[in-house]
């Protein structure tokens, strides 16, 4: 087999404020023709940086050294003009975020034609034919009518398909895919992976696949490189790595999977929160008089009931209304229908009346980077609720903050630092501490583990379970990750486009799903074996 991309002793460092940070410390890897190679590692391991530096797509502050050759020609000293000929023509890229990698102001035809005219000089009728052919190949239905669509008119999965079509436009030899499925729902993820495997076989190209998801790697890769802290710690054929991992880090990655079951709900537990046919409809208004012509039905008739010490897992793909439902239960957005909290209907209470109740219901958000104000110290963030609801008698704020930090597994000495000095997992612990310091009875967990690495996910799940046991907390756990849901939930509710599709005890839903949609979801999420097409 011929070497397509060969990287020897690659080093990348970033300079900021005069200090040099080494991101990649001398890695070597190669991709052969027609082969899929995966770079695996947790966030910050340098996998994306390694891939982007092959065609020098890094920011100006990066210093790159090492040998990079593509198809026998040396790229490390190539001029910017030579690199431009290679980028998009011989080596193509697919990025993680399909929402932002397409220009929102251009039609599909224009986006794809751009690279065709740049590298092949195609325009007019032949270019249009080629675009339609490409869209057909990536599985966009009725491609001819889709040409004048804008990105916002497509779903996330379709956008990622368009990205793939753009990447394939010039028949590349090598495709570098940087977390191409991470931002997608599980069912869509499976479809995209299938498509990539098919296309690779058809076009006989090499693929460098960057991901943190080992399930994806097992499905698609021929060989695997495992990266940690900017170094490759282990590499080999996929079967070997998964079958007999040697390096302790690889072993840890493979074992990192949220497992176990939650502690059983105590007998005669009080019901804490209950809704009856809760509806969240946003009116669509037309014309001068704001006539309501219809409704966007974000949530349709959802009835939930959670007891103290119990977890209700709400599962669904993006846009299914699961977060909207949780926000409505907390009275953060308006809704119709009774919400009983501790035997009191809180629907229609004024925000002043609600304020004392706020201490009893708290929320932890998905994004540990966005949910902490970057300009406040950890102490200020955690203590914010105390400023509204007051401290416990005879204790001062600092004392309580220190105690709660210890409880969620953070060093109390760190309370004077700012959020950016913490890792994703630590930040999520801070967010949990902020919610827990008020000793709430109900905690809404809105995808608290989705933005975290697998190994960190496991720790957070452990922490949540321990807190539940200790304080008999009721959780409303929202997630699209069914493994985490299984590890935490007593009851499960499956939602699709605002409707409750299925609801029941966790073990029943997981072992014996009733509806077709739930079966599909479970198959895509838990079964990692694809029909072998490559």
């Amino acid at each position: 087999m011929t070497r397509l991309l060969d990287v020897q002793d690659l080093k990348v460092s970033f300079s900021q404020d005069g200090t040099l940070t080494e991101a990649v410390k001398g890695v070597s890897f190669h991709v052969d023709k027609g082969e899929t190679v995966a770079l695996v590692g947790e966030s910050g391991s340098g996998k994306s940086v390694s891939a982007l530096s092959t065609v020098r797509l890094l920011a100006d502050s990066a210093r790159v050294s090492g040998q990079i050759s593509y198809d026998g020609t040396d790229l490390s000293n190539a001029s910017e003009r030579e690199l431009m000929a290679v980028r998009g023509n011989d080596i193509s890229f697919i990025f993680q975020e399909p929402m932002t990698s397409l220009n929102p102001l251009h039609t599909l035809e224009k986006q794809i034609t751009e690279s065709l005219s740049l590298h092949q000089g195609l325009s007019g009728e032949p270019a249009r034919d080629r675009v339609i052919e490409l869209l057909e190949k990536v599985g966009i239905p009725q491609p001819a009518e889709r040409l004048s669509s804008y990105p916002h008119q497509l779903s996330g999965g379709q956008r990622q398909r368009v990205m793939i079509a753009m990447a394939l436009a010039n028949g590349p030899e090598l495709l570098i895919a940087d977390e191409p499925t991470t931002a997608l729902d599980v069912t869509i993820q499976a479809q995209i992976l299938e498509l990539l495997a098919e296309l690779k076989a058809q076009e006989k190209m090499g693929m460098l696949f960057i991901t943190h998801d080992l399930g994806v790697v097992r499905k698609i890769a021929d060989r695997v490189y495992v990266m940690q802290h900017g170094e490759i710690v282990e590499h080999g054929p996929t079967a070997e790595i998964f079958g007999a991992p040697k390096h302790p880090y690889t072993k840890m990655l493979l074992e990192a999977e949220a497992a176990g079951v939650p502690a059983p709900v105590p007998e005669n537990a009080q019901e804490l929160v209950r809704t009856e046919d809760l509806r969240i409809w946003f009116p669509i208004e037309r014309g001068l008089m704001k006539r309501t012509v219809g409704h966007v039905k974000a949530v349709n008739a959802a009835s939930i009931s959670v007891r103290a010490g119990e977890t209700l897992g709400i599962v669904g793909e993006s846009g299914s209304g699961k977060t909207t439902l949780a926000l409505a239960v907390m009275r953060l957005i308006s809704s119709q229908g009774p919400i009983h909290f501790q035997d009191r209907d809180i629907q229609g209470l004024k925000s002043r009346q609600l304020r004392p109740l706020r201490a009893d219901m708290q929320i932890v958000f998905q994004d540990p980077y966005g949910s902490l104000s970057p300009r406040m110290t950890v102490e200020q963030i955690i203590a914010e609720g105390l400023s509204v609801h007051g401290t416990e008698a005879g204790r001062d704020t600092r004392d309580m903050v220190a105690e709660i930090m210890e409880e969620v597994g953070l060093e109390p000495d760190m309370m004077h630092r700012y959020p950016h000095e913490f890792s994703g997992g630590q930040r999520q612990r801070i967010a949990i501490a902020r919610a827990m310091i008020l000793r709430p009875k109900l905690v809404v967990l809105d995808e608290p583990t989705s933005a975290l690495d697998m190994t960190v996910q496991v720790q957070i799940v452990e922490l949540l379970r321990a807190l539940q046991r200790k304080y008999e907390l009721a959780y409303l756990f929202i997630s699209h990750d069914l493994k985490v849901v299984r590890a935490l939930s007593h009851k499960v509710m499956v939602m699709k486009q605002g409707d409750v599709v299925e609801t029941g005890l966790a073990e029943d839903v997981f072992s014996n799903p009733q509806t077709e949609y739930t079966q599909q979801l479970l198959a895509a999420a838990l079964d990692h074996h694809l029909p072998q097409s490559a």
Partner: protein
Amino acid sequence: MSPLNQRRWSNFKRNKRAYWSLIIFSVLFILSLFAELFVNEKPILVKYQGSYYTPFNTFYPETTFGGDFRAEAVYRDIEVECLIITGGVVDCFDAPEEIIEDAADGIVLGEEIQKGWMIWPLIPYKYNTIVDKPGTAPGPPDAMNWLGTDNASRDVLARVIYGFRLSILFTLLVTVASSIIGFIAGAVQGFFGGRIDLIFQRILEIWASTPSLYVIIIMFAILGRSFWLLVFLSILFGWPALVGVVRAEFLRARNFEYVRAARALGVSNTTIMFRHMLPNAMVATLTILPFIVTGTIGALATLDFLGFGLPSSAPSLGELTLQAKQNLQAPWLAFTAFFTFAIMLSLLVFIFEGVRDAFDPRKTFQ
């Protein structure tokens, strides 16, 4: 200082041009604030008959120094100078020059005197002092008037220094006041959104389309020209400048997760606005601020140039520019006006450029 601000300050200092501009500007501005000490028609310190006087900030009638009038002493008059030096010799009223010469040895007309002196500021004119010298006004630069005199025979350098101070103070007042108003208006619109936002935006559109120049001219015609009226009118028409960006920042920030989290904690609206959202909008405000500052300086100069600005007695750079246009035979007026504006505006632009870069989190400094 928080680490974030420390980082910003060190980033700012690394931009040499901005840093030096800030130093130069601060020195100039602080000096101009104490202009009465350097540029004045009254002495800083007078010793008369063994006691000390500070005329630059205190009123002394001429009688204090042995004169006849009960009005304030005119220290530039040779008679007053003679009185002070000789300690009040009456003959000063007849032949002051000879007496001063005579007083050099401490004895006047055979009698010992208590010798006095005056310490003059560096530039012994105020912006409205009429310089008494031969020739027609405007007069060219010479040893007495370093930048010449203007068409009313007033010292140009003194007018520039006071004019600089007035411009900057005017700008600071207008910028601070209209920024605060604009910030609050934008914050309210962005935070609450919906109907409040809709109504406010329409009011703003009407307000922004009012021809402010006409209003200023009309108000001046009714109430008479004054500095404070101009400040008030400039604020009245200046505050919408910031509303747009602040509103946009607040609209964006109200959906941030940490704002939602604060709401879930039961934090009140005002606290959320001040603690969580205001710091976000500050960065956007800082990028707009230089335009407001330079725009305000320009607007004041324009009004003065057109003759609708400050009262004609006030030291005004715009009026100097107008004189330069009317007196092309006196090029020192035009050069002075040009360089004053060029240096002042460049310094401000350089400073704000540095501030903007220092606040940019994505900018890397090597």
